[in-house]
Structure formats: structure tokens, C-alpha cells
């Protein structure tokens, strides 16, 4: 049977005091309500990150492992609402400049030291604000974290910080690292970056580079009776076909964030032994993108940008290249973001005649051979679908008289070509939405990012109205008003189309049906798995 996460928590906390459960927890075997305790849960990872510290590196590849070992103040519940983890509650001052977190009592670090407000203070001021990608931007107005007592942390900002933005962002950008391990050391070289010490349901055991990471059940975990499995193993398998074989032979039980090839995901979908779903990844929507370099005079003309969007049959691409996974995007905010999605149709649907008319109108008449002009397209290979889309764009644009040359570089090369050297006309890659436009998305449109910062507005395009709305929305405290501001922002962007969100998609997780309590939160792959268990084979 499957339990919801909250159901399991209630059950466990309700019966945790009984001696029978205590013994069951200690010895393994049957737990409450048919839950099978014990066993090893093995997860696949296709890429290996350099360090295992989510307070220093914000990336799903880091979270998949470390979120079971380290914890944040809050996490998302099944409905996508931030709920307490290491915090037990919070208040924001009416002016939005102070947010007070009350912290959980009796929590211990894996090395036995107590968790206190000093850890929160240190993580926020020394790690998130100084090093953490996205965190430095989120916390740029954070002035201090006061700790009036060991279980209270008061965040003081110089500009209003919307409570909903902070809480949503802290699910990803709010992991707490132990103050006593990091203080006074060289943060980037601290050994705890590859041998993490946390407060989570699993304790780090071993990291074999290129092979696996192991973490064992934390018997002193503050959620009594949890976690259910004895051990989690993460295996690095770079070859996606080999990863599918590992899943099929039972060597791994779960692979998150499109760890397998699209073809294998599609194939396993019809296999009764596996679940292949976008459930559990709702918080990590992403888009296929098409970036325009506005320094090219043709692309500086909005009619040309619209014509390019009209020339590409996105539903056809999704159906035939993405195995039907995804839908045409309607703007910079994906529909998975229920809080901010303004709701509209794709602004520039496929219409080849309209595309040709727009190009003619803009004055770029077909020359010899029917070619109007030639553009260089740089694919940024975030996933296997990026080169496919690049080719599809090339062929689609050929049909309206725009010749496209594809410039093939590896990821590091493509990033520096586009973002550092501005040496591109078109680029295509992924945009990952992180729950709030202010965290991940507004930097793609706001001007002022220094040259070389990847995934920021380096398009040679600027709009004062968009800049003003971005800033206003980032400091607006009323959630309803924020939502309205972002709707307005979306409308402006869709009008101008500085870059184009082509598709919107969600990551797929493939798991054996034996996995229970899986995929039950919107960022499940990056959650703590304290309630996950494996049914007998």
C-alpha cells in the first residue's frame, strides 16, 4: 500500500512511543501499517558533481545526494507549500525587512554536536550570501542574521524581502551547514564539502569518485522512527543506455531528472515493473530556449524574431522528437508554477505564411537561392534534445529563407561563446525555472548582468519597463500584487520576444514499482526521502 507523506508522518509520530515500534525501528522488519523497514535504496546519477555541499552549490546533481544528509529550514510539501524542516515557524515584520525563524530543538549534527541558530547564521552570512550560486543574488540585501537565543534566527534585510519568495527560494537555497565544522577554515577546501556532515535522515559513509556515494540510516534522526531504509547508495553511470540496463536488472531502483535517454524513458513507460512519470518534479520545470543576439541588425527587428517563432512547428517537434513530453511554452513563466503562471496561449503559434509575410515586411527579401540572410546557431548541450532542436530550427528556418549554420561546441565552449564572447546569432539550450521568477528567470531579461555570467541577459537587449517591473516585483510584499506584476512583466516580454521559450517541460523520474512513498513532493528527487521504503521484490 502507498501512504501519503503526511499520513506516514502522522502514523509514525502517533505510534512512535510504543515499545514495539521502537524495537522494529532498531531491528528492521515490518514497521507500522505494513511498511517494510530496512533494505538498500540505490539511485542512479548520470553526472558527478565536484562537491557535496548544497549550501555552497545549488544544483539538482548536488541535491539528489546531499538533501538526504543535510537539511534546510523549510521544504515543499505535497501541495507545493513551504513547510517546516529545521525551522518550526516564522514571522515576517510588516515592513518586510525582518524575517524571524524559530528553530527546532533537540536536533543533532551527525557528529553529535547540537544544531543551533549559530549554524543558521553562519550558513546564511558566510555560505549563501558569499558563495552559493543564486544565493548570492537572493541574499544580496541580507545585512545580518541575529541570534537572540540558540533557537531563534532573525534575518535582517536592507530592502523588503517578500516572505513567499524567501521561503520558496530557501527550499533550494537554504541548506544549513555546520558552523563548528566550517568556521575559521578555507570554505572551498573544507573536507566536509566531499564528506558532508548534516542533520538529515541519512549519515554520510563513503564517496568513491566515479563510482558511488553511500549514506546510512541516522538512528538519532529527529523525526522519530524515520527513515525507513537502512542505506542509500548513489551510483554514477554516465552512459544512459547502461543506466537503463542497471534499472532493468535491479542494480538501481530510481533515476531522477531525466537520468535515462528519452527513448528508454518512453520504452519503460509501458513496462509494468516501472513507473515513469513527471510526478515529483513539478518544482523543476524547464524550457527549451532560443536566444537571439540583438547585436545582429536582422535580429534586432522584433518582426524577425516573431517570424522565427512563427516558422517553427513546436507541437510537431514535441510529438516527434520529445516522445510527446512537454508542451509549447506560453512565456517566461511555465504553467507548472501555479503561483505565478499568468495563463495564456503560446504567443506565436506555427504559421509559416505569417513568418514569410513578417520577414518580407521587415525588408529582408530573399536573395539568390531564396536565402534572406544567414545565422549561426550555437547549441548549449544541456540535454540530448538540444542538438535535435538545433537541427529542427535549421530546417524550419530554411523553409522561410533563413539559412542557419550550426556551430558545434561542447558545453563549456558554447557557454563562453554565447555569454562571454557574444559570438553567436542564435543559441539554444535550457532554462530551468526554480519556483519563483525572481530566483531563476528575471536575470534572463533584466539588464545589468556583467558580461560572462551564464544564463543571464547577454543578448544586447534592454527594456526599461521590464527592468523596472523586475525590481518592483522582487521587493513587493503582497503576494497578489506580485503575481499581478509578473503577469504584466510576462505580457511585455511576450510582446518584445527578446528570447523565446520554445517548449516547457518537466523532468521525468523512472523508478521500480517497489519504491513506496516516492514522488510524493514536487521536488522529490531533491527531498530527504525520510519516508521512502522498498516493498519486497
Amino acid at each position, binding site marked *: 500500500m502507498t501512504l501519503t507523506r503526511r499520513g506516514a508522518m502522522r502514523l509514525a509520530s502517533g505510534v512512535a512511543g510504543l515499545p514495539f515500534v521502537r524495537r522494529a525501528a532498531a531491528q528492521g522488519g515490518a514497521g507500522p501499517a505494513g511498511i517494510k523497514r530496512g533494505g538498500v535504496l540505490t539511485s542512479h546519477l548520470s553526472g558527478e558533481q*565536484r562537491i557535496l555541499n548544497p549550501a555552497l552549490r545549488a544544483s539538482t546533481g548536488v541535491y539528489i545526494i546531499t538533501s538526504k544528509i543535510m537539511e534546510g529550514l523549510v521544504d515543499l510539501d505535497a501541495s507545493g507549500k513551504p513547510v517546516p524542516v529545521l525551522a518550526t515557524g516564522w514571522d515576517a515584520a510588516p515592513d518586510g525587512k525582518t524575517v524571524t525563524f524559530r528553530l527546532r530543538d533537540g536536533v543533532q549534527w551527525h557528529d553529535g554536536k547540537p544544531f543551533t541558530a549559530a549554524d543558521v547564521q553562519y550558513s546564511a552570512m558566510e555560505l549563501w550570501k558569499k558563495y552559493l550560486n543564486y544565493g548570492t543574488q537572493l541574499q544580496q540585501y541580507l545585512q545580518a542574521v541575529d541570534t537572540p537565543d540558540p533557537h531563534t534566527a532573525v534575518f535582517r534585510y536592507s530592502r523588503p524581502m517578500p516572505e513567499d519568495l524567501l521561503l520558496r527560494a530557501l527550499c533550494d537555497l537554504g541548506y544549513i551547514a555546520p558552523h563548528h565544522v566550517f568556521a575559521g577554515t578555507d570554505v*572551498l577546501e573544507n573536507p566536509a564539502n*566531499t564528506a558532508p556532515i548534516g542533520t538529515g535522515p541519512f549519515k554520510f559513509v563513503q564517496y568513491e569518485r566515479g*563510482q558511488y556515494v553511500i549514506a546510512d540510516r541516522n538512528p538519532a534522526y529527529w523525526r522519530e522512527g524515520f527513515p525507513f531504509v537502512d542505506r542509500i547508495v548513489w551510483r554514477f*553511470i*554516465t552512459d544512459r543506455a547502461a543506466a537503463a540496463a542497471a534499472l532493468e536488472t535491479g542494480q538501481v531502483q530510481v533515476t531522477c531528472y531525466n537520468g535515462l535517454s528519452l527513448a528508454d524513458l518512453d520504452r519503460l513507460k509501458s513496462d509494468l515493473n516501472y513507473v515513469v512519470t513527471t510526478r515529483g518534479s513539478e518544482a523543476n520545470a524547464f524550457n527549451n530556449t532560443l536566444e537571439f543576439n540583438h547585436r545582429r541588425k536582422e535580429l534586432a527587428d522584433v518582426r524577425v524574431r516573431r517570424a522565427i517563432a512563427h516558422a517553427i512547428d513546436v507541437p510537431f517537434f514535441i510529438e516527434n522528437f520529445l516522445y510527446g513530453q512537454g508542451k509549447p511554452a506560453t512565456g517566461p513563466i511555465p504553467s507548472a508554477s501555479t503561483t505565478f503562471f499568468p495563463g495564456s496561449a503560446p504567443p506565436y503559434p506555427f504559421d509559416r505564411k505569417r513568418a514569410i509575410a513578417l520577414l518580407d515586411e521587415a525588408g529582408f527579401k530573399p536573395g539568390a537561392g531564396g536565402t534572406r540572410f544567414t545565422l549561426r546557431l550555437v547549441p548549449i548541450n544541456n540535454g540530448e534534445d538540444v542538438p535535435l532542436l538545433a537541427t529542427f530550427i535549421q530546417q524550419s528556418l530554411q523553409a522561410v529563407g533563413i539559412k542557419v549554420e550550426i556551430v558545434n561546441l*561542447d558545453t*563549456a565552449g558554447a557557454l563562453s561563446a554565447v555569454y562571454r564572447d557574444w559570438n553567436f546569432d542564435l543559441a539554444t539550450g535550457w532554462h530551468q525555472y526554480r519556483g519563483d521568477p525572481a530566483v531563476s528567470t528575471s536575470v534572463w531579461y533584466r539588464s545589468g548582468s556583467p558580461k560572462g*555570467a551564464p544564463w543571464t541577459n547577454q543578448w544586447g537587449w534592454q527594456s526599461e519597463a521590464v527592468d523596472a517591473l523586475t525590481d518592483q516585483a522582487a521587493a513587493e510584499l503582497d503576494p497578489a500584487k506580485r503575481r499581478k506584476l509578473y503577469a504584466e512583466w510576462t505580457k511585455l516580454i511576450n510582446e518584445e520576444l527578446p528570447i523565446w521559450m520554445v517548449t516547457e517541460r518537466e523532468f521525468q523520474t523512472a523508478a521500480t514499482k517497489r519504491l513506496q512513498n516516492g514522488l510524493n513532493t514536487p521536488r522529490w528527487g531533491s527531498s530527504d526521502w525520510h519516508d521512502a521504503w522498498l516493498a519486497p521484490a
Partner: protein
Amino acid sequence: MRVLTLAGRRLLASLPTLLIILAGLFLLLQLAPGDTVDALMAQMGGGDPAMMAQLRSFYGLDATVPVQLGRYLLRLLSFNLGYSAIYGKPVATVIAERLPATLLLMVSSLGFAFAGGVALGVVAARRINRWPDTLISTVGLIFYATPSFWLGLMGIVVFAVRLGWLPPGGLEEVGAGHAGARRALDMALHLLLPTATLSLIFLATYLRIMRAAMLEVMGQDFIRTARAKGLSETAVVVRHALRNAMLPMVTLLGLQVGNLLGGSVVVESVFALPGLGRLAYEAVVQRDLNTLLGIVFVSALLVIAANFAVDVLYARLDPRIPGER
């Protein structure tokens, strides 16, 4: 003493080569757009300029290219391979961690390919133009023409997924806590498929060479003499023909040590083995210069050592070859 002189001269001759390879590779990698921080950002899915600048200075990337190269060579003089940007530890440690898997895979594949090639080559040569020869030569050609990643994946599909006889990848069962003979057996099982994949391709080459060498030797006068002495056919083949036919095989063995290091990138990826090939690939993709140069350095040493061993072997196999060449 003869051996030592030979070793000394070989090493001396390879030093300039090594230096040119390292400096050339360093400069070549400067031509690739993007540095390790770009690669890191790509892996993380985003970062900000402040962090990037911080990391660049942490990895010493803010210096000019000649300064970086100079620093590297200076470090190398003291046998310090530097610090790996990807792994956050000394390159020497990173390589030492990966070397066993590669060596294990390399030695077992080479051993298998060599032994199999010799045996099959002899059989084919003895039964020339009859069905065993045709069969062996055809199968050899098929293996030679098949890409190794395909062979590997098909091996996984058949033996791991369908039949369930062998594990689909990895070096050993993770966290099983085996020790001693049990662990060795476990690792042997895990290495069976990758070894077979890697060696099948080389097997084909060895087989062809062995067959040709045997045919040539078997037609020579001393074989006729041996037969005339009244020796049995087995004694003629094993004692007289084989030893002479081995010379080209040993040459090939020395050459292919280098090949095996490169060829294992594919096999290591498909079978998720933590070897040097995959490390090198990752180092290129992640622009981890120190690690890549370190691997090249170690690989070059391995190839030099292997060729040295081949030279020594030559002298043993054929007393006519003098040591002071």
C-alpha cells in the same frame, strides 16, 4: 647491466617527447573555448559573476597562459602533478584512485586477446583454407568491424538484462562488504563483460598477425629440418615455429598498450568503471587541465614502460637481437 643501460637510454630519449607532449597539450587546451569554471557552471545550471571570479582565482585561472604553463612545468619538476579542479584533491591521488581499475581491465583484456589470438591464429594456420580457418577468420573480421560500445551494450542487454547471469556494470557490488576471495570473485564477474568487449576487437588483430606469422615460419628451412629429425608435429609447432612467430606479436603488444588506454574510454563509460579513460574524458569536458596533463603524463610513462618491457622480451625471445641497439 645490459638491461639497465637500455632502460637508461630509453628513458633519456623519452624525456623531450614527454615535455613536448605536455606543453603541446597545455597549449592545445587553451584553444578550446571555455575554462573549467564555465564547465562547472554548465554542470550546476547557473551561477553568478562574483562566484565565477572567486573560483577562477581559486583555480589560478586568472593568470596569463605563459604564467600558467610555467607554473605547471615548475611543479612537474618536483613531481607535483598539481591540484584537480574537478575533484578538489591532488591529481596524483585522483589518478592513483583510478589506475587500478584501468590496469586490471587493460591487463586482463590484453592477456585474453593475446592468448586467444595466439591459439586461434595457430589453429587457423594449421588448417589453412579449410573450415576452421574460414570460420576463425570470418568471426575475427566481424569482431574487428563491430564498434566496441555496441558490443558492450549488446553484452549488457543479453547477459545482464535478459539472462541475468552477469552484473551490467560497476567494478564490484556496492556496499556488499565482501572481502578476500569472495571480493576477487565478485570483481572478476563484474569485469567479465568489459574485458570480453575490449579484448574481442584486439583479438581479431592478434589472430590475423599470428596466422600470417605462423604461415611464414612454417614454410622455412629449419622447420623442414625439425621435421626431418623426426620430431612430432606438436613439438615442431610449439618448440620451433611458435617462438619465432611470436616476435611480431610482441611488437604489436607493445604498440597496443597505448591503444588500450584510449580505447577504454568507451568501455569504461558503458560499464561504469572508474578508470583512467573516463577520467580523461571528463577532464577534457570539464577543462580540468591539471588532471588531463597528469593522465597524459602517467599514460606516457605506462607506454614507455610497456615498450621497454617489449624490448627486453625481444632479447629473451631471440638471442640474435643485441641489447646495445
